[in-house]
């Protein structure tokens, strides 16, 4: 109770609250601007939080995140252009509803769905993170190393057909982190006699360069669109219809809960974020609807599903970060960066060792959702006005801000050179279709992977332990199947052998480490996995041969 009070006092401190309000506002603005992603807003917030106490810094970043997740719906509903990839599905029904003369209701449903998604996922985060952390206490260095490999391969596999590019990007991210003094024995690597390189690249500068600088360059590429305003909408005279929206949400509570769970689960998976969750939830809402004729024409369920799920994603992404120290998506990876910046290394003992900070994160998450709904209702016009600013003006101001922010991290001009160099690299990679998410995860998790590899080999030099320890084997199996997944997706609905064997093989393979773990629950799960895979195999092969 004392710890909870300490955390609460940390967050309701007037300075922290002011930063949170500014953070939510900044997030809402960033989210409402098409082309400016939430991750970019969060990464640009990082330098600001450097001088703050950890709880205050994280609360500010969470506020930007919550605001950003909700900001995308405004431009999506009012202009038909989603502010962020997380709000793509919102436009399917939000824009038609607004065009049909009910923009206030569409916004109301969107805003309240976002709120519900945020609150449900915050509750689930509070419930699940400590449980997952307890499982994480079983992990040894072998398991942590394999967990990082799994996170990287899953993220790379999300690149779909470009799996190889995703893997190259992930490996390049790991390599970037090897520059400088080795964490295990303190030997300099790839420093070429430079003191700056010996201390390693400032990874916040690397993240801002890779993500924000390269994104700005992409936005500025076309000289014509760079001089245009982001939206030609002159005025917004919309009043959000709160009461009607809440009524519709209560009537569709099943859609709300299902979408929140989809968002939460997608968030927990490394690499998968709001951009996937909103489409998945929309698709599920449409499939589950008895009458789906109105979908795409302004059906409220078409707004509820994506907006609830995309806000629920972050609770999911923060769960493995707080419980295991492994981020669930890019924004959580940047949060991990913020924690590392304050010399706090999250892991299974994080919630136990830093309970006040953990509670501060929970409370900030809840509070930010309330601030978000207040600001969305009160100053909606201001946020949409931002979309009238010309792209090149916004990009120049953000670039100037990023420059000062990066310098402020360590008072080092070399960090700005790092920003510049990785900005170019990120831009070139974007142009050649390399996904940046695996690279960013590689940069953030690189030293965790290497340290755990070194620790594992120091305990026992036998490399086979990476494949015979239950958790390590579990993650290795999931990593291998995640790499095969894009090929499986290509062969779906073709009736190929791979399509028929993929899911039973995943279940059968995972049953082995589950058996090895022992205990009633895990053994039962293993038996269930074998039974289900047997049933699928019988359905796909046995019944056909009889026929």
């Amino acid at each position, binding site marked *: 109770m004392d710890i909870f009070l300490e955390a609460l006092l940390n967050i309701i401190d007037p300075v922290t609250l002011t930063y949170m309000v500014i953070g939510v506002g900044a997030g809402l603005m960033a989210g409402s601007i098409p082309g400016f992603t939430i991750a970019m807003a969060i990464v640009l917030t990082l330098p600001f939080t450097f001088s703050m106490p950890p709880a205050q810094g994280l609360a500010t970043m969470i506020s930007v995140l919550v605001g950003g997740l909700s900001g995308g719906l405004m431009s999506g509903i009012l202009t038909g252009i989603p502010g962020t990839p997380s709000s793509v599905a919102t436009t399917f029904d939000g824009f038609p509803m607004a065009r049909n003369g009910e923009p206030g209701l569409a916004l109301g449903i969107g805003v309240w769905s976002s709120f519900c998604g945020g609150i449900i996922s915050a509750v689930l985060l509070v419930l699940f993170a400590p449980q997952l952390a307890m499982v994480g206490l079983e992990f040894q260095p072998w398991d942590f190393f394999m967990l990082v490999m799994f996170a990287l391969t899953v993220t790379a596999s999300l690149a779909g057909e470009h799996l190889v590019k995703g893997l190259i990007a992930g490996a390049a991210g790991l390599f970037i982190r090897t520059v400088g003094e080795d964490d295990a024995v303190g030997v300099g690597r790839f420093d070429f006699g430079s003191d700056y390189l010996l201390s390693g690249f400032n990874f916040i500068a690397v993240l801002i360069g890779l993500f924000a600088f390269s994104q700005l360059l992409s936005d500025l590429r076309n000289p014509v669109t760079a001089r245009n305003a982001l939206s030609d909408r002159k005025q917004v005279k919309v009043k959000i219809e709160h009461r009607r929206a809440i009524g519709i949400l209560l009537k569709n509570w099943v859609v709300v809960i299902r979408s929140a769970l989809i968002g939460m689960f997608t968030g927990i998976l490394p690499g998968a974020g709001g951009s996937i969750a909103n489409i998945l939830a929309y698709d599920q809402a449409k499939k589950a609807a008895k009458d789906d004729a109105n979908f795409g024409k302004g059906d409220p369920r078409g707004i509820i599903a994506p907006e609830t799920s995309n806000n629920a994603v972050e609770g999911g992404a923060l769960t493995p970060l707080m419980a295991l120290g492994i981020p669930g998506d890019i924004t959580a990876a940047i949060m991990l960066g913020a924690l590392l910046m304050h010399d706090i290394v999250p892991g299974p003992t994080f919630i136990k060792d830093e309970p006040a900070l953990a509670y501060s994160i929970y409370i900030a998450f809840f509070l930010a959702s309330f601030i978000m709904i207040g600001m969305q209702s009160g100053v909606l016009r201001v946020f949409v006005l931002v979309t009238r600013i010309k792209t090149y003006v916004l990009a120049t101001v953000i670039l100037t801000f990023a420059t*000062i922010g990066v310098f402020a991290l360590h008072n080092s001009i070399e960090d700005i050179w790092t920003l510049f160099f990785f900005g170019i690299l990120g831009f070139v990679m974007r142009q050649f279709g390399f996904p940046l998410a695996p690279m960013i995860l590689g940069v953030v998790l690189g030293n965790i992977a290497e340290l755990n590899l070194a620790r594992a080999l120091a305990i026992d030099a036998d490399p086979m332990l990476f494949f015979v320890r239950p958790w390590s084997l579990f993650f290795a199996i999931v990593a291998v199947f995640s790499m095969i997944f894009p090929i499986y997706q290509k062969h779906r609905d073709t009736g190929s052998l791979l399509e028929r064997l993929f899911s039973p093989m995943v279940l059968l393979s995972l049953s082995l480490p589950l058996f090895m773990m022992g205990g009633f629950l895990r053994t039962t799960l293993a038996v269930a996995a074998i039974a289900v895979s047997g049933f699928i195999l019988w359905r796909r092969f046995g019944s056909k041969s009889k026929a």
Partner: protein
Amino acid sequence: MLASFEIREPDYGVLSPAAWPRLIIIIIGVLSVIYLLQSIGMPKEDKEAAPRKTIGEFILYWRNVIAVFTIFGLYLLVLPYLGMLVGNILFSFILLTVLGGWNSILIHLMLAFGASGGMWLLFTYVLEVFLPRGSLTGL
């Protein structure tokens, strides 16, 4: 890969400091070969989808990006002499004008002073971050 052989081998620790980066380089190498083979095996139509550009067309197409790179590079070179306040005002003014055209020069000037000056004040006085002064300007 060559640089990884320059890494000192200490007498302690099981994992050599060169082992991890070398492993990553090998993985990148193998993946690059796969990527190369995939590119070679790509259908001819896909390869010809993007028509070749002359150098002039290339520069015209990428002019904004080249401008940002060049101006940012020059800004970094003169930063120690001009300092962050003057450097940022000049950088943002030149970038705004190059990207947005000469018609709104007054607005660009005001924006450059407002945004860069505002941020300088915020970092210097609110966040108490010491921003670099220029050896020529003293600001």
